[in-house]
């Protein structure tokens, strides 16, 4: 009876009291985002609308204002803004950033695990690919939700390739041959050299790699048999042989005249315009390059001019591979727990296949979940469909290790030293090894 009365009282109270409106402002900062990436923020806005409607049906009034910002001064400026904001206690509620930030930011206490607020086994998060979810996890906790997926293919210019004597059928078989390890980086180098010698491309344009450090170079390390972490202990792994062979490969490319000695540091704008218009025979990039080539750079026949494969294997020890470097939605630690909860729910809703597909197709990224392939917008896009099929099953990610940043920087510095001829590959590898052993200590295994 007593229970009954209190229940009645509760109902009466709820009915009589005016519905209390809850106003909440959610800020979203998206790093490394250009104009075509606006759905990183807009999807949170759409999610906010959904959540408010759901609340209204329950009889609650929830007003969410979403404030977005994506004009940062590069990655450095963005990361500084987030970390300093977090120190000062006014970090944005949601950040879209590289999954590599999870380890340092989690350990600094800047972010909170998304698994504390949402059901990972429920829709739509149970639709997200398991390996992508894994990339947004660290130390046994699910910190974030993948915002997009991508992968980094190897490209070749079909016209040049045909002039080297490859037929249409050869090109169709290329991705399978690369995957099987029948066409290696060494074969590519020989072809690139031929292309330069035959005058199909200018000197230095046979193989035209990325102009700055990035996940791409981890791929070449893997091509030569390197692994980034030791699966047993989770420590970072420095494979001396693989590293030396990878450095040697770039040195050989320079010596053969297919890659410029001063290539690193080339302007990105120049680089994009050159590769999109057939000035280079072979190069590598990311799935989002499709948007740039066909958009700003004006390549109107992408599939007729550009072929793509995995990054070929370098030798027998290595494998054809590609790295996916998904951006993730992360929640920052806030005074107000309710804000974290709302932010988490918004992130979950923004991961709905339909919403994520808007971003994927608009920005030439790949789907984060299985169901997206069933949507017309996704399956109707040839690039998304083909890239998903050829690349995504073979994609691995860089490790979420607090010291991976130092590892990656050192690896690239060494590569640059060998590439520009300042040091021999052996010297460069020895120096990188010395530096990493000194800085990482027990967290590194040298093999």
């Amino acid at each position: 009876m007593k229970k009954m009365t209190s229940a009645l009282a509760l109902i009466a109270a709820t009915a009589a009291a005016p519905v209390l409106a809850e106003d909440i402002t959610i800020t979203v900062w998206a790093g490394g985002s250009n104009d075509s990436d606006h759905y990183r923020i807009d999807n949170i806005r759409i999610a906010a609308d959904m959540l408010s409607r759901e609340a209204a049906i329950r009889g609650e009034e929830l007003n969410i204002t979403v404030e977005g910002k994506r004009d940062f001064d590069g990655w450095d400026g963005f990361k500084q803004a987030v970390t300093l904001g977090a120190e000062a206690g006014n970090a944005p509620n949601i950040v879209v950033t590289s999954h590599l930030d999870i380890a340092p930011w989690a350990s600094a206490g800047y972010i909170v695990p998304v698994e504390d607020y949402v059901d990972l086994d429920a829709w739509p998060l149970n639709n997200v690919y398991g390996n992508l979810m894994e990339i947004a996890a660290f130390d046994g906790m699910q910190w974030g939700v993948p915002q997009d997926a991508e992968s980094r293919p190897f490209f070749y210019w079909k016209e040049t390739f045909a002039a080297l004597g490859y037929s249409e059928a050869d090109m169709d078989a290329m991705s399978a041959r690369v995957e099987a390890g029948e066409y290696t980086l060494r074969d590519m180098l020989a072809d690139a050299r031929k292309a330069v010698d035959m005058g199909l491309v200018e000197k230095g344009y046979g193989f035209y790699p990325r102009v700055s450090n990035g996940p791409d170079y981890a791929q070449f390390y893997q091509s030569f048999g390197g692994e980034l972490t030791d699966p047993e202990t989770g420590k970072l792994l420095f494979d001396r042989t693989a590293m030396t062979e990878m450095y040697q490969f770039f040195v050989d490319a320079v010596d053969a005249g297919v890659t410029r000695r001063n290539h690193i540091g080339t302007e990105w704008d120049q680089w994009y315009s050159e590769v999109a218009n057939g000035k280079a025979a072979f190069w590598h990039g990311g799935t989002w390059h499709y948007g740039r080539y066909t958009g700003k750079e004006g390549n109107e026949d992408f599939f007729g001019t550009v072929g793509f494969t995995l990054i070929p294997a370098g030798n027998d020890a290595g494998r054809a591979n590609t790295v996916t470097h998904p951006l993730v939605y992360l929640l920052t630690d806030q005074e107000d727990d309710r804000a974290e909860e709302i932010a988490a729910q918004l992130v979950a809703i923004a991961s709905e296949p339909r919403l994520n597909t808007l971003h994927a197709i608009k920005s030439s990224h790949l789907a984060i979940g299985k169901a997206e392939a069933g949507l017309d917008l996704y399956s109707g896009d040839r690039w998304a469909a083909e890239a998903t099929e050829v690349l995504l099953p073979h994609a691995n990610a860089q490790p979420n290790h607090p010291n991976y940043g130092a590892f990656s920087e050192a690896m690239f510095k060494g590569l640059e030293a060998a590439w520009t001829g300042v040091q021999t590959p052996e010297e460069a590898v020895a120096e990188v090894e010395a530096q990493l052993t000194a800085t990482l200590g027990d967290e590194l295994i040298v093999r």
Partner: protein
Amino acid sequence: MTRQTLLGLGFLSPALLAVMMFFLLPVVLTVVFAFTNMSTSTGILGGEYQISESDLRRLPAVGVGEDAVALLAGAGYAVQPETLAQFAAEFGEDRAAELDKLHGGAKFDDQRAMERALKELRRNPLRKVRDRKTAADLFRVSILGQRFATRDDFALAITDLGVPERDRLALTEAAYTGWTFTTQNFELLWELPATWRYALNSVIYVVLTLAFNVGFGLFLALSTFYLPSRTAQTFRAIWFLPRILPPVLYVLMWQWLTWDQGFISAMLRPFGFEPINWMRHTATHAWTFIVLINGCVGASLGMILFSSSLRAIPETQLFAAQVDGANRWQQVRHVLLPQMRWPILFITSYQTLSLLTSFEYILLATDGGPGRQTEVWALAAYHTALSNYGGNLEYGLGAAYALALVIIGILLSALYLRFFKFSELVAKPRIEQ
């Protein structure tokens, strides 16, 4: 203290405050940071206490006993009488009884598995995600991954867990997520071969740029000195442009001038020169342009200072020299230059110090390339502390780089002051003694 002194101090106080905040404090902070292992991972304002999965394998190395590690490593969630009692208190006896029947005595590795178990409640299900999260938390028995705000909270938690007394101190220290004081940054700087290369690069950069700065500034000042004043002013205004242009724009113009399809390559192409990136082709190219880029900025400042001090030299001395038959060169060499000692001292020391710490033009032009051959000390400090693609910025190590610059700067200033006999410059004029 007299009223006048107080009044004086009162007037000075805003300036003193500014000096403290913008000059002294950064140096003090640099010194403090240099002796810490501060990075993005440790945060800036201090840490909390947490043992995470990946910490477990590090623990034996820092002196935590095996049995303590085993205690920590146990499964995260357990359905046992104590946890069930808590659950019953919050969510009702029926649910607790049903869960006990379903999973009594079970252990779960993570929160997700615990929630799955809770979802199996049928009679009176926990329908809301939030309730399941709260309920799952009640079954948590491990402290793995939990953050404790204070040392005491953590100490309490490990005591509850039954960690032996002898392991507690080492464990607490290992669990601290914030920064600690250390001298390892300096050991690291000493050990790393790259450090010495950056030091050498800095020497090359400062010496060459300084020579260009002072030499060219002096040349401009002297050459405009003999021009009619209106023409001279026009020339000086033009030479002053590099200093007032925003660095990004100024360097962008150099980029356009030097890249493969830039002005220099285009001009030289008809003469049979291969187009190359003139700024980044080799280290020599890079240094040449870095010296030119910085030198033109520095020279304009030198020019202004030298020009004004040239004008302070009484014209009568030049007339006298002319009467004695001295030509322009002899005037410069024997009349003007000897009186330019102080301005040259000032520009030299000022520029040395500012060049040592300046890196923005190098960052914009070559970013230390090709192959880190133009990576100067200050740029290395920036790259270490503020720029890392992988996200972990090493503030402590960066500060150690910066501290070395502060020390070198102070030593050099003292040296310059002695060498150029600064005390004579500031001595009281004899006539007033």
